[in-house]
């Protein structure tokens, strides 16, 4: 039986879905494998570029990309970053704030058709100065492709809500 529950029992034979661990449930050294993964297409990358006024034609002009060492369009790395972080939400749903990234390193190119998965490790856990209702985590999340190769490495700080006394309980989460 897991110590982490997917439901809150709100009544007899009544369950509410719950996501995200409370700050108290995290510990340095824990590792999480996030599911599901997501297969990205070249169209996803084009959409990301158009939405973010990204003028780098390496992401959307196949003819140009054919003349580069990559030979085809590269995935826009801002989309890779968003997806790798987004895939972690079921573990980190109670984040109150994204404090910032120490680093986001892109270690391998991603192409349309690749499938990404995310894995995270808790590096540090600490009280947050002036915050009674949340604590601070330092997390390393890596993005992996379908071959298990690391394509992105992200190290960042989060504020995560403590159990019970948080906004989530008040709003029926």
């Amino acid at each position: 039986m897991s110590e982490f529950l997917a439901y809150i029992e709100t009544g007899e034979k009544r369950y509410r879905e719950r996501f995200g661990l409370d700050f108290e449930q995290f510990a340095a050294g824990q590792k999480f494998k996030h599911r599901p993964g997501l297969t990205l297409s070249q169209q996803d990358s084009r959409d990301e570029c158009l939405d973010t006024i990204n003028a780098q034609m390496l992401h959307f002009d196949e003819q140009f990309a054919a003349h580069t060492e990559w030979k085809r369009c590269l995935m826009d790395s801002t989309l890779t970053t968003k997806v790798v972080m987004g895939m972690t939400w079921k573990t980190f749903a109670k984040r109150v704030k994204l404090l910032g990234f120490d680093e986001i390193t892109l270690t391998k190119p991603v192409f349309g058709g690749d499938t990404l998965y995310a894995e995270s490790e808790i590096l540090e856990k600490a009280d947050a100065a002036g915050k009674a209702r949340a604590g601070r985590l330092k997390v390393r999340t890596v993005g992996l492709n379908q071959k298990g190769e690391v394509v992105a490495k992200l190290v960042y700080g989060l504020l995560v809500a403590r159990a019970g006394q948080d906004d989530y309980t008040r709003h029926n989460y």
Partner: protein
Amino acid sequence: MDKLASHVEVAPGVFLERMGLFFEDVEVGETFEHRPGKTFTIEESLRHTLRALDQSPMLTDLNFHDQCEAGAWIINPLHVLAVLTGMMTKTFSRIVANLAWEKVEFHEPVRDGDTVYAESTVLEKRGSKSRPGQGIIRVRTTARTHHGRLVCTFERQILIYGRGQGPYEAAGY
């Protein structure tokens, strides 16, 4: 060719649009103001959040979000980082690969309806030993809203082509 030229005269009276600085064109200490700015809406933040598989209530449930500690609707900071990166692509478009973001800090949240402008200062440049004709530059980017509120700062390391290098001429750029 003047590094600031917007067009190349490819035949008498025929002008090809050009964009972006080569490694030799960039000097440490130069600052580039990126245009256009971008107005963020909560709808686009929601769409990008969901498309990254993220369903955190903090970013997707506006009823919850409006009433909790963070206050009125904020734009997903990862989408802000993506747009700021997109804004840089007209000056820093001669890119071989995006290597990393570092020291990413989110100062004040971007809120629904805010317009954000960014500028980038060149901190360092060095030629690549393993890739002749290419070099690595480090830039620091600062983003403010139209009210002048500081929202995000970060540094990036970018591998860029030197003059005469890259696929541009062969690809018709």
